[in-house]
């Protein structure tokens, strides 16, 4: 089962391939796989930084009235943690999966616009570096990742601690990265629309690709709202445009509308590719085709649509009109339905299967349960009066870490264990994987489940310290200690990534008996991805081939050779 030219036991890792040798090849790549790898490495680096910031926060919060960090420092730390996780770590990590695997899974040789793909990456990297450069200019962003006006206006960001350029670097950094993201979405959409293997009808497109495409639509429509708001804020700060200044007739709430018009789709942007990964992993490790393919695809589209009609649920405490609340509460509750459909379809996929507990599958299952918790607290927040009581508190922090960390990050982990062999040519260590998995499950739930109670007990979010009110000391102690366990798990993951590159078992083309096209080529795939594109008769082309007893390297050459350079 080796579509490439080298037998697996001799195969080097991706970094030893002659086409990818040399600095120049990594400075000017246009191959989607190389760019994908650069996205992986960069986003993992930013992820490590953001995790370190999180550990600093949890250390500061380990006990009441802790005097370690000043408010000035803590505010930068939590703001940069949120911004980095969302824009520089998790979203680009998902984009990395999209860029790397979309062409492979649809039998294309590259993305539609390889050079634009490279531009996206460089914009992302430069945006990220610019954002971090702000630390050296007198202080980074210190107003939270949602940067509510009018606190972001110059008269409030100037203080004796800092000159307040952090907000400006944030604006410009996110604009750059955001422009890159918009190009990513165009690229993915055109690739999926135009470069699918000849017989891959829309009804045979792998679910990961479906969800990536839906994600691309969301990014395309949501990012401009953020970019607009950023430009308006920049004008406010430097040309006195007064968009958000109430004393001059501006509206602080306008910022919130813009921000969340982007921000709510954004949280789906942060989960849809994850849903896609899960929809690939569960069938493979259950040896059973995905249950309810059509419903999953439709549910994805429904989520995409609805996600643009729920943004004001982030503003239930702003004192708007009740009619507005009704509309947004209803829409927010409705969006839970397609999400629920997915969960039940995944379970139904496992049902009757032959389930193996490889690390990828463990992460997928933990994801289902943890994400369900995050989803349910989400429904609680859509119940307006509960939002009135609990928004802006640690209950929210717990809620969105259940969706983003217990949710997305766990899907990403499943994705790494599933696809690392394809990307690098080596298997990740399952032994380290299991250790990592248990450290992360215990650490994550220990750190964040209990934070629901911190919110109930009266702890607002974004505070650098808190008084010794009943229960807060013990809750925070447990949360911080568990967070260290979680961080240990993450370190084990990084160790695994590095060690397995040298010591990992050679992967072979299709170590997991995957069903989709990426497993029909060698690991790592050759620069042009496929020598022959196998026929696609269903959503599980490789399983079909196996049944009919034909192996990929004896395939007839595909009817239409494609070249997209």
């Amino acid at each position, binding site marked *: 089962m080796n579509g490439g030219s080298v037998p697996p036991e001799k195969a080097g890792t991706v970094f030893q391939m002659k086409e990818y040798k040399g600095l120049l090849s990594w400075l000017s790549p246009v191959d989607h796989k190389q760019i994908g790898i650069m996205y992986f490495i960069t986003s993992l680096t930013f992820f490590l930084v953001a995790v370190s910031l999180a550990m600093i926060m949890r250390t500061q919060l380990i006990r009441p009235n802790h005097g370690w960090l000043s408010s000035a420092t803590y505010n930068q730390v939590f703001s940069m943690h949120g911004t980095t996780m969302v824009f520089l770590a998790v979203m680009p990590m998902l984009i990395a999966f999209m860029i790397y695997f979309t062409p492979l899974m649809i039998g294309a040789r590259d993305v539609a616009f390889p050079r634009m793909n490279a531009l996206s990456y460089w914009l992302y990297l430069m945006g990220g570096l610019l954002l971090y450069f702000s630390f050296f200019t007198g202080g980074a962003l210190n107003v939270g990742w949602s940067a509510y006006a009018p606190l972001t206006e110059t008269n409030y960001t100037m203080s004796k601690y800092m000159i307040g350029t952090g907000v400006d670097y944030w604006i410009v950094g996110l604009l750059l990265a955001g422009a890159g993201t918009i190009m990513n979405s165009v690229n993915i959409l055109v690739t999926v629309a135009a470069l699918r293997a000849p017989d891959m009808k829309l009804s045979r497109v792998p679910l990961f690709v479906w969800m990536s495409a839906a994600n691309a639509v969301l990014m395309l429509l949501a990012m401009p709202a953020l970019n607009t708001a950023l430009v308006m804020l920049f004008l406010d700060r430097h040309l006195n445009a007064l968009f958000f200044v109430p004393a001059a007739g501006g509206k602080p709430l306008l910022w919130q509308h813009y921000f969340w018009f982007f921000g709510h789709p954004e949280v789906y942007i942060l989960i849809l590719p994850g849903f896609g990964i899960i929809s690939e992993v569960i069938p493979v490790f259950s*040896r059973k085709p995905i249950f309810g393919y059509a419903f999953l695809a439709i549910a994805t589209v429904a989520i995409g649509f609805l996600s643009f009609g729920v943004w004001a649920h982030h503003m239930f*405490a702003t004192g708007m009109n009740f009619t507005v609340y009704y509309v947004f509460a209803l829409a927010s509750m409705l969006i839970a339905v397609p999400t629920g*459909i997915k969960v039940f379809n995944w379970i139904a996929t496992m049902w009757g299967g*032959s389930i193996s507990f490889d690390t990828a599958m463990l992460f997928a299952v933990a994801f289902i349960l943890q994400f*369900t918790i995050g989803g349910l607290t989400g429904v609680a927040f859509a119940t307006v009066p509960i939002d009135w009581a609990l928004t802006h*508190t640690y209950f929210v922090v717990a809620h969105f870490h259940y969706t983003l960390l217990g949710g997305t990050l766990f899907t990403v982990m499943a994705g790494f264990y599933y696809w690392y062999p394809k990307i690098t040519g080596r298997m990740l260590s399952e032994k380290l994987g299991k250790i990592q998995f248990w450290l992360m499950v215990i650490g994550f739930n220990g750190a964040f489940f209990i934070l629901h109670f911190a919110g109930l007990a009266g702890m607002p979010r974004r505070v650098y310290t808190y008084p010794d*009110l009943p229960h807060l000391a013990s809750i925070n102690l447990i949360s911080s200690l568990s967070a260290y366990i979680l961080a240990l798990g993450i370190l084990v993951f990084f160790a695994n990534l590095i060690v397995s590159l040298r010591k990992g078992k050679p992967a072979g083309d299709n170590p997991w008996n995957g069903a989709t096209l990426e497993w029909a080529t060698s690991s790592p795939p050759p620069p042009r991805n496929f020598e022959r594109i196998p026929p696609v008769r269903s959503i599980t082309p490789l399983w079909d081939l196996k049944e009919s007893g034909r192996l990929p390297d004896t395939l007839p050459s595909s009817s239409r050779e494609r070249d997209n350079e």
Partner: protein
Amino acid sequence: MDYFTSVLSPGTRQAVDILRAFYIVLGVSAFIFAVVAGLSMYALCRFRRREGREPKTFRENVRLEVLWTAIPLLIVTGLFVVAVWIMSLVNPPALGHQPDLTVTAHQWWWGLRYPQPGVTAANEIHLPVGRRLLLRFESGDVIHSFWVPSLGQKIDVIPGHPNHLWLTLERPGVYLGACSSFCGMGHGKMRIRVIAQSTDDFNTWIGSQQQPASPPSAAQAAKGVGVFMEKNCINCHSIAGLVTKGRVAPDLTHVASRETLAAGALTNTPENLSRWLRDPQSVKDCNMPDLGLSDDQVGYLVAYLGGLK
């Protein structure tokens, strides 16, 4: 005095209603989670890979799909009804009613104005139990959020966008809360203290607050008045009966009657007051500058301000 700090110990009718919604949703959520977790765990155990057992191959079942679309739809419709019902109980529109209290949030303290009796105070909110009260919220600068967990709803305090809350306190006690919308450096130390009292106690308190500041009783305190006038305090602070042009800092007319200083950052003792006057920035990030007072001056001010019951 009983202290209330948690969402789970409601002190107003509105908080009781919200907690009811919370428990309903909690029950429903626990049920759904049990179903999801139960089914997954069962599947994992029952269908784990074993020699010689072939996986099934079914791919679809429209009846099942309809079932698990319809049931969640019914559930969320139910929850939506709960939301609408509790909303109308908790915080109906103010419809032109006059507020019993106007709270003005500032970076990083709370200004209070009781329009009816005409009382100005700061940071510590006295309210009578048993009556349905209307509170109005305005902001003097950025967005804050008024959150006292046991009172039920929180409300954002937004410049140019006044908001309101209805509260019916049920039990006397001290209700602790905090600003919950990030508002800058001092956000973490912008606490709220609500003192719920019987109508009699409340009226006594109002009566005492209506008085102008007591004149200095001793020589030390009289010197304190001088320092207060000289050292720019009056540009920011007001003391009824002395000078009332300061608008950007807490009213100090009855500062000694408060339990805490600087929005809950310190308990109100003479030592803490002098610590505050010596170096306010070491207590919390705030808009009160270090005024370079000598030890003597601090002593005089403490004597004066400490007498402003």
